[in-house]
């Protein structure tokens, strides 16, 4: 396969970026998308130029490191697939491919296709956990969890924190990311103690980080490589309303 790539190049956060054209030659359809980029980079290096910087690590679709908007869709054209799992057999020989970084104010570009997603970590730090300390917990079977609830919690916690939902959202909102964690923990009896406080502080942290507001476009769901559903946002909204009636204590613990 031979392809024409238009890749976003940006030297640093403060620099201006632009699309640069590359020719990807002799690409095997068996290659993954990132292996295609590896091949292009080898060529760039041999030409004495700086290769395209992109985030990647596990290359098996679970670490959430890879982050590219390919032909206008975060993680590219194949449904429920991260960039690293996307294979070249999904592209047409002779076609062109646009490759851009996640774009959102909360995700400043570090270099080329690499963005800073630490804002997502800070949403979790605000309260995306159960405040249990190590040791002194009851036996694992002491609290029963229905099969359905455990399943729903698992569905929500499959989120890999890649940020595709933000990249896809016309509002740059991180609501799907936030909702997946809120739902995961609210579905479990262990997580319900802090549920009211959690939903408030996490959504507030989301706004503070500069993410936009959710207005139900559902683009996030369409882009999510792990099939996280917008129903979890509905669940977050229910949790938020319930929290108002519970008169949640809002202050962070000191």
């Amino acid at each position, binding site marked *: 396969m031979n392809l024409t790539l*238009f890749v*976003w190049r940006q030297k640093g956060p403060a620099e201006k970026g632009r*699309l640069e054209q590359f020719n990807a030659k002799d690409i095997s359809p068996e290659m993954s998308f990132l292996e295609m980029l590896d091949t292009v980079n080898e060529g760039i290096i041999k030409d004495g130029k700086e290769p395209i910087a992109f985030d990647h690590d596990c290359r098996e679709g679970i670490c959430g490191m890879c982050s590219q*908007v390919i*032909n*206008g*869709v975060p993680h590219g054209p194949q449904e429920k697939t991260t960039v690293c799992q996307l294979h070249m057999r999904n592209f047409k020989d002779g076609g062109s491919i*646009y490759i*851009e970084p996640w*774009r*959102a*104010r*909360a995700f400043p570009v570090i270099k080329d296709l690499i963005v800073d997603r630490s804002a997502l970590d800070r949403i979790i730090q605000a309260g995306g956990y159960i405040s249990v300390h190590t040791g002194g917990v009851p036996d694992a079977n002491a609290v029963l969890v229905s099969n359905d609830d455990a399943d729903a919690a698992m569905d929500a916690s499959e989120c890999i924190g890649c940020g595709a939902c933000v990249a*896809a959202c*016309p*509002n*740059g*909102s991180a609501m799907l990311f936030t909702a997946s964690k809120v739902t995961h923990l609210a579905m479990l009896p262990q997580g319900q103690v802090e549920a009211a406080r959690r*939903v*408030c502080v996490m*959504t*507030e942290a*989301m*706004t503070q980080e*500069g*993410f*936009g*507001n*959710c*207005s*139900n*476009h*559902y*683009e996030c*769901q*369409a*882009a999510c490589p792990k099939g996280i*559903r*917008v*129903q979890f*946002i*509905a*669940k*977050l*909204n*229910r*949790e*938020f*309303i319930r929290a*108002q009636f519970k008169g949640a204590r*809002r202050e962070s613990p000191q």
Partner: protein
Amino acid sequence: MRFLENTVGRKIVIAVTGQLMAVFAIFHLLGNYFNPYSMKFPDIGSFIWLARLAMLLSFGLHTFFGIQAELENHKARTGPYALKKSISTTFAAKTMIWSGILSGVFIIFHLLNFTFSVIDESFQDNYAVALGYTIGLSAVCLHLYHGIASFFQTMGWNSEKSLSVITMAGKGMALLLFAGFICIVVLNRV
């Protein structure tokens, strides 16, 4: 009022006030076809004023938080993608701010026209006004095309299965309203 500082809290305000106005629009349409003044409502006068107050409040809150959200959303985005494909969103959802502003202008015009009679021209006589009504109604219904169903998501009143049904029903309701209102304009012109 932490509720109103929270993105979800404000979204709920937008949703509830929007839906109140949508419900009003439904009654409004029914009223156009079946005149409620001819029915025997007890104490209809004070009910109307209560409704007017609720609508005024809804209109104000909806507009304020709607525009605020839009400004924030605009800020949350950086530079456009060279290429961006939408997968699941609709034209209606993407243009909520514009259909909203247009609807607001239209509603004010409509009130000045009918309720307060400041503007005398009626669409029965004036083609330009009729065209204005058509555009205004299109904007309102485009807004509702996304808005009605969106309300249920925002309130969390859906489930795994009902989400798609509610979305379809919301869109259907918006189209019905459009058909109902536009008929009045068209029938009165012809």
